């Protein structure tokens, strides 16, 4: 985060003069990242020279093969990880220079798995989302009680995710879908402008997948929330995302609407396999289907 990119002008907030529709939630420039800062060699880059923008109010899906850097990219956006090189701006402010707590007031991050070993209740867990908003005395941040405002915001987050009836239940006793909704409610209690979700529907059955997707769409439509989600499920990304960012081996391969990205040639180049693509019967977005098994030479080579 040492040097600003060449087009630094656009990184500086014009006091929000631009129309809301064209506002950028994130500007990412020449982002490079690796987990072991001391290792040498180009092969170690998890993300290499990634540049893109995220528009305010859009749902952006990050897809790509295993190990292509999807989750790392999401964590960099959340400032949970620090980039090795490059610059990121969050609503025009340099992300690297923002204190962690200020990032937390704008961006909420839901990791793929949130195991809890202690029996916090659902309500207590959701209230933890209010932590970054306690910016008074250090004592209040460390020990103080939740305000009435905190409680009402948390209760609304519970209603939004249909968890009110479970408020007093221990999070350890929740099902997978309930726990995921609880973590989303916790993120909503942060009152964020950006929601980052890592594989929000992994390990969930069909009904719970639809619930999560419905919540995400509603957040965008009713509140103008910017949502960035990582998913393995290309069909889910195609159906629920406004734009899709395809990563291949740490580099941005393609960014565009589902029609641009979910393409036979693109998927062949990124995943190295042939797939069938047709239209979703309702929405008309591209739909990916695996072909029937044939003992082709390609499969043999890959094995």
């Amino acid at each position, binding site marked *: 985060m040492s040097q600003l990119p060449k087009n630094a002008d656009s990184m500086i907030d014009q006091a929000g003069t631009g129309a809301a529709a064209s506002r950028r939630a994130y500007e990412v420039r020449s982002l490079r990242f690796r987990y072991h800062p001391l290792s040498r060699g180009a092969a170690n880059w998890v993300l290499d020279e990634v540049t893109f923008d995220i528009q305010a109010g859009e749902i952006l899906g990050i897809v790509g093969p295993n190990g292509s850097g999807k989750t790392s990219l999401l964590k960099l956006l959340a400032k949970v990880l620090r980039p090795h090189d490059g610059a990121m701006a969050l609503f025009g402010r340099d992300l690297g220079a923002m204190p962690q707590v200020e990032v937390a*007031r704008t961006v909420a991050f839901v990791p793929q798995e949130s195991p809890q070993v202690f029996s*916090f209740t659902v309500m*207590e867990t959701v209230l933890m989302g209010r932590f970054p908003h306690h910016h008074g005395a250090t004592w209040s941040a*460390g020990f103080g009680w939740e305000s009435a405002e905190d409680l009402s915001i948390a209760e609304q987050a519970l209603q939004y995710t249909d968890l009110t009836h479970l408020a007093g239940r221990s999070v350890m006793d929740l099902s997978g879908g309930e726990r995921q909704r609880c973590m989303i409610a916790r993120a909503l209690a942060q*009152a964020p402008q950006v929601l980052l979700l890592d594989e929000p529907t992994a390990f969930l059955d069909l009904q719970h997948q639809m619930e999560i997707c419905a919540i995400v769409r*509603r957040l965008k439509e009713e509140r103008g929330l910017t949502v960035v989600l990582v998913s393995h499920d290309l069909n889910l990304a195609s159906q629920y995302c406004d734009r899709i960012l395809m990563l291949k081996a740490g580099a941005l391969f393609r960014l565009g609407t589902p029609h641009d990205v979910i393409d036979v040639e693109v998927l062949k180049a990124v995943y190295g396999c042939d797939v069938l693509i047709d239209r979703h019967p309702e929405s008309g977005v591209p739909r990916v289907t695996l072909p029937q098994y044939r003992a082709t030479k390609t499969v043999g080579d890959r094995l």
Partner: protein
Amino acid sequence: MSEMPLTIDQSRASVPSDQPGLANDPGATPASSGAEKSGAVLTARRWTAVMVPLLILSAALLLICLQFGTQWIGLGRVIDIVSAVVREWSVESEQIGTTGVILMQVRLPRLLLGLLVGACLASVGVVLQALLRNPLADPYVLGVSSGAALGVALAILLGIGSTFLALSVLPLCGFAGGLLSLVVVYRMAVSYGRLPIHSLLLAGVILNSIFSALIMFITSIMEPNRSAGTMTWLMGTLTAPSYPALAILTCYLLGGLFLLLKQARKLNVLTLGEESARSLGIETERVKRQVYLLSALITGAVVSVSGMIGFVGMVIPHAVRLMLGADHRLLLPASALVGGMYLMAADTLARTLLSPAEIPVGIITALAGGPFFIYLLVWRKDRFA
């Protein structure tokens, strides 16, 4: 920042009710304070409603334990002597007699020390469990206590004067040893400026076994009479301290507990996992370093006065969490009081079971806590493994 403020309340009115899975919550009835009433949230009122009875209970248990010992002293006599001492503000034997001296200069300081040590062990157990996100952690896992014990054992071996400016020098050696082992564990576990929990645990285990070997070596080359005393201390023993020493120790340890309590909300958030905690605005590495340092200092002081009293830091937080919930704002002070009471009771047993002989209290806590640990490990591991 707030050009597009997102207050959650704007949206509820326009919720489409045909959303799958969301339809059974159509009413816009704000469930205000419903969660509060059902105990889902910790409030200042509930905090007081738990802590005040616990304080009263601690005082009551202290009075009860004062009765027990080689010589039985009835509750009426105990109260007489205590009130006389409070009136006269003196513990001289002329005013209170031999019984009074036993009570005020032997039993009371020892029980107060037990209260303090138990409170510290339980509190350190709570915070280590939160940081390591494992309900099996206790002050001994990190190897800090064996480091402190090594420091103290070395001081005993080298015959470093037992007093320095009227204070025992042994606690200082305990701090030094505890701090040293913390630094070593930290150096072993740290990678790229971060502290992965698994390597931390492993480093603690390794350091523990090295330090235990060194302590055994030291006791084996001591003079026999000294070595016996050291072994007793290592097994965990409370001895009546002088009041000035107790006062200094109390100030030091209560200060440490207060600083831990100041981190209670951050500890709550840290149980979500480090990445979640960071995304909620916590400088995780800094908080962890502070809390580990405080834990080491508290443990060092406790070990130097009472040796290795195990399992209090694991059993008590677990039991209190079951009863009162996991919020550290209540869990931490409540565990401190319950831990103090537990050790007072255990020490009273240690003094009376084989009276006039004494059992090291560490043996009693280990015999009570060990099976509990096994129970957790065998039958409840699905909850945390």
